[in-house]
Each structure stands twice: as structure tokens, then as C-alpha cells.
């Protein structure tokens, strides 16, 4: 396990490094000039050169990368090219919305996918199982943002029980209010991601349903559900955790879109605004934070995957 942990940690560091180089390269090597964005189209060449020097754009690419990544390692994500505000401080503030949004969405997705997926597998020959499978197919096909819009329509417009959009300006100082504004976004994310996960839960439970060890457990007197709960689910959980690791990227993208539907002031909305302004320093910081989060979470899920599988744990 220790050897695996070290290897996986090295891999995580390399991945984040490669991702940071990719992000930097994509944003710098492609044409498009921040100086003209700031200076405007009428800026003289001298003005443009001054802006470039101020932003450090006149230095060599490796030097620019070095100072960016050196700052990130100290928690300094640089300053906005347009208004000079600290990118790190803004990110920290926006994460207070995005992190609970993504975490709650994942939790709800699991709460939907696991019980229904097991049910769909166990009852796969009955109308109940077929119905659940069909619903998950529909859930996968429906765009997350449309789920959000329909939820707004039903709960905010028609029933008027929950806010349609926005987040309290004073953040989490009134937790009740903050939670209320996250309920619909959570449901939208949970339904969309839950539908995807449900299919994987169903197929992996179906896979263990006919296993020898489950038949043995039944033979020694356990009921069908008893055998499945004690022996089957732990085995079925293995492929599901790997899929969850891959789904994290999709979930975070879903969160970006959902933030826009519900006008939540999160990292996604920030990114969208900064892309429109072509504020490259902010965009590269935001993209790095989001990609880094995906990589760290899939790292953690891989470790959990090892822990729940004793065979892999002992393999070292």
C-alpha cells in the first residue's frame, strides 16, 4: 500500500505539472493579445509595449511560466490583468459557493444512483427494473441546464417555494438562506449525475449477482437481499468508485453550467466572465484550480478504491 501510495502521489504531482504546462502553453502560444484588450484598439505601439512590460509579457515564455507557477506554489495566483485584483483571494471566495455545490450534487447523485441502481439490477426482469433503467437513459439525455430551467419553472415560478436564482450577498453568514438558494442547483446536478452513475451501479451489481460467492452465501442460509448487502455490494462498489473518479470532471463541468443557470457567484461564473474579458491570468488560475481539483479528487478516489479492495491492498 505504501509503495502504491508513493507511486500514485508522484503521478498526481506529474499530472498537475503537465496540466499546468498545457494550460499555460494553450493560453500563451495561441494568438490573441491581452495588451490590445487593455490598451484598446487605439493604443500606440509605445503604450502597448509599456503594458506588456508591466504584465511581464515581454519576458521569455519559460520565465513567465516559472514566475506564475512559483507564485501558485506560494498560494499567489497572480493579479487580474484588467483591474489588478488578487486572483487567489477571489478564487477562495468563489469556492465557498462552488465547493458546497459540487459536493452536495455528488452526494445527492450517489443517494439517487446507489439504491435505484441496486433495485434496477435485482429486479432487472421486472417492469420496475426496466422502468428505472429507462428513466436513467432519459436522465442521461436531458441537458443539465434544462433540468435546472425546468426546476426553476416548477419550484420557483409555479410553486414559488424556493429562490429561482442568486446567492445571498453576505455568503454563508445566514446558512439557512444560503442552503435555500443551493437546493435547486443541488437537485439539478444530482439528477443529471445520478442518472449517469445509476447505469454503472446497475451493471456492476448485475455483474456480481450471478457470482459463485453470492450463491454460496445463499446456500449457507442468507436471504437474497442479505447476501447482496453483506457480500455483493462491496464487490459491486469497486467498478463504481472508478467510474466516480472519471465522472468528477463531468460533475465539475455540470457545476459550471448550473452556476450560470442559477446565477450563483461561483468559480464557473467567474471563469465565464473572465473568458469574455480575455483576462488570461485569471483564466489560467481558474482553469488550474478546477483541473487540480479534478486530479486531487480522482487521486483520493483511487486510494479509497484500494482501501475497499483487500486484494489490491495486499498487492502493495
Amino acid at each position, binding site marked *: 500500500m505504501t509503495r502504491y501510495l508513493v507511486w500514485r502521489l508522484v*503521478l498526481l504531482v*506529474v*499530472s498537475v505539472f*503537465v*496540466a499546468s504546462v*498545457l*494550460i499555460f502553453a*494553450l*493560453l500563451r502560444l*495561441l*494568438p*490573441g493579445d491581452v495588451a490590445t484588450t487593455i490598451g484598446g484598439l487605439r493604443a500606440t505601439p509605445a503604450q502597448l509595449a509599456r503594458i506588456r512590460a508591466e504584465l511581464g509579457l515581454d519576458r521569455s515564455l519559460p520565465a513567465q511560466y516559472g514566475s506564475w507557477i512559483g507564485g501558485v506554489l506560494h498560494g499567489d495566483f497572480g493579479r487580474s490583468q484588467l483591474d489588478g485584483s488578487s486572483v487567489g483571494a477571489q478564487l477562495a471566495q468563489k469556492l465557498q459557493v462552488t465547493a458546497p455545490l459540487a459536493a452536495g450534487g455528488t452526494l445527492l447523485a450517489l443517494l439517487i444512483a446507489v439504491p435505484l441502481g441496486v433495485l434496477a439490477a435485482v429486479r432487472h426482469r421486472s417492469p420496475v427494473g426496466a422502468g428505472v433503467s429507462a428513466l436513467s*437513459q*432519459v436522465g*442521461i*439525455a*436531458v*441537458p*443539465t*441546464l*434544462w433540468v435546472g*430551467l*425546468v426546476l*426553476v*419553472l416548477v419550484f420557483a*415560478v409555479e410553486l414559488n417555494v424556493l429562490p429561482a436564482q442568486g446567492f445571498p450577498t453576505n455568503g454563508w453568514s445566514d446558512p439557512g438562506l444560503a442552503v435555500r438558494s443551493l437546493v435547486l442547483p443541488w437537485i439539478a446536478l444530482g439528477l443529471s449525475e445520478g442518472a449517469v452513475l445509476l447505469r454503472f451501479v446497475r451493471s456492476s451489481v448485475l455483474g456480481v449477482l450471478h457470482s459463485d460467492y453470492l450463491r454460496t452465501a445463499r446456500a449457507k442460509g442468507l436471504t437474497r437481499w442479505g447476501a447482496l448487502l453483506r457480500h455483493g455490494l462491496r464487490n459491486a462498489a469497486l467498478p463504481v468508485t472508478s467510474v466516480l473518479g*472519471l465522472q468528477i*470532471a*463531468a460533475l*465539475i*463541468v455540470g457545476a*459550471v*453550467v448550473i452556476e*450560470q*443557470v442559477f446565477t450563483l457567484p461561483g468559480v464557473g461564473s467567474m*471563469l*465565464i466572465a*473572465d*473568458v*469574455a474579458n*480575455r483576462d*488570461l491570468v485569471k*483564466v489560467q488560475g481558474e*482553469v488550474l484550480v*478546477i*483541473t487540480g481539483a*479534478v*486530479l486531487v479528487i*480522482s487521486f483520493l478516489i483511487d486510494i479509497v478504491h484500494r482501501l475497499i479492495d483487500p486484494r489490491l491492498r495486499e498487492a502493495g
Partner: protein
Amino acid sequence: MSHRAPEYVPARPRRSAWRRRQAALRTVLAALVRRRSGVFGLVVFGLLVVAGLVSLAWTPFDPEATDVHSAWLLPLHGGHLLGTDRLGHDQFSQLLAGSRETLLTAVAAGVLAAVIGLVLALAAAMTPRRFGAVVVQLIDILIAFPVLLLAMILAAVYGGSTVTAIAAIGVGYGVVVARVARGEIASVRQTDYVLAAQAAGARTGRIVRKHVLPNIAPTLIVQLSLAMALAVLAEAALTYLGYGTSPSVPSWGGMLAEQQAYISARPLLVIWPGLAIAITVLGLNLLGDALRDASDPRLRGEVA
């Protein structure tokens, strides 16, 4: 299938590769149309193609014509099948015209993803071990990179357009296809007939053409269909966010973005494009699943 007794077969020259491929295709198609999900998928995709082509020549109204006198019409009023929006745009015509953008993105991004996936998978599985291992790690890192982020980086530099959306979706799902195809290629590579070909001195290029490609073609076609479904969803989301198709071109994601503000007054205007996207994606996903079953001889007999 030949009905001749086996002993006559060696006397005739083997059927040409083209004829054999045609026969295989017929078997798969026959298995496909025996499945309800396969028929549904084919019908949906067919409708999308027809809608896109028809809209080039004809739509009931000009989808972009502003007519304030027939604004806010309910469905089936004034000859507007699905009603009109605040500018009097006929929603059915907009849906028809928008299907072009959906079809274009789905096909272009899907094919791009399949090509990138195939090239990466071949680079990972058919090259010397050390090089292959590096490619595999690269694929794993790129998979963590969300498609939407890639699209937004491109949009930050170039400004969002259908082209940046297609490029981002194609590259983003290409690595997913690569992961699936690499496993398939690795298992084909270990078969006895590939070993035999290698022993007979066949070069890598010949093995890829004669053995690897025909064997992974079904997998690639299934992945193409699933990638197209994902591309439809991603294009709609990107356009909704303002980083895909330009607002001046009719598109389903653009309709959602446009009508969101009037959701309390005219909820139906948000429902139509959402339904169109959902049915298209459902059809492509089911087509992919049915193709997977139909191309697998072990499952071909079962009808789901």
C-alpha cells in the same frame, strides 16, 4: 452465408474482402433493426439528418424574421406549430434551422474524436512499450481535463465559435475514445493470428490494416455514436454559456439561452429546444448501445 457444402468452398476463390465486409454489415444491420432501441436510434438520427437538410431549402417561416405583430403566439395559432417568441420568431422553424448546427457539431466532433482516439490508441498500443506507457499516462492526464474548460480556453483566445466548440469536444472526447480503443487493440495484439502474422514477418502497418482495424471497427463505431451524443449536449451547453455557436445563427442551445429570461411568461419556449436536445441525445445513446449489442456475436441473438 454460403449454403454450399464446406468441401466445395476451397475450390472457389475466396469471396472478396469487400463482399465479406458487406455480408458482415448486413448481419449487424439486421441485428440492429431487431432491437427497439436500435430502431428508435436510427429513426431519431434519420430525422435529425432530414430536418437539417430540409431546413436548408425550406422552413415554414423565416426562422430569423422578426414580426412583432405575431409575437408571443401560443402553439397552433396563426399557423405557428409551436408558437412564437417575443420577436415573433416561429419556434418550429428555429428548431428546424437549429438542427443543422446540432448535426454539424455532432458529426464533425464525433468523427474528430474517433480519429484522435484511434491515433492515440494506436500510438499507445502498437509502439514500443516505453513510448506506449508514456502515451497511456498522457491519455489519463488529458481525461481529467474537462471538455468545457478546453472549449473555454480556446474561446478565451479565439472567441467562441462553432469551430472552437467542435475542436474542444473532438479533442476532449477523443482521449476517452482512445482509452477504450487502447484496451481493445491491446487484446487484439495478443491474439494468435497477430502472433502468427508477426512470426510470418508482417510489418506493424500491415498488422494494423489487416487485423487491428477490422477488429476494433465495431468498438469505434459504438464510441462514435456515444461521442456524438455527448457532443450534442456539450454544444448546447457551450452555446448556452455564450462560447459556442454565435447567437445570430439559430441553435438549440442558443434558443434556451434566449428564452430563459421569459420562462415565467412562456414556459413552453424553454421546453421545445430542451425536448429536441433530449430526444436527439437519447436516440444517439440508444443507437450506440444497440450497435454494441448488434456487433457482438454473443449478444446478437438476444433481443432487448
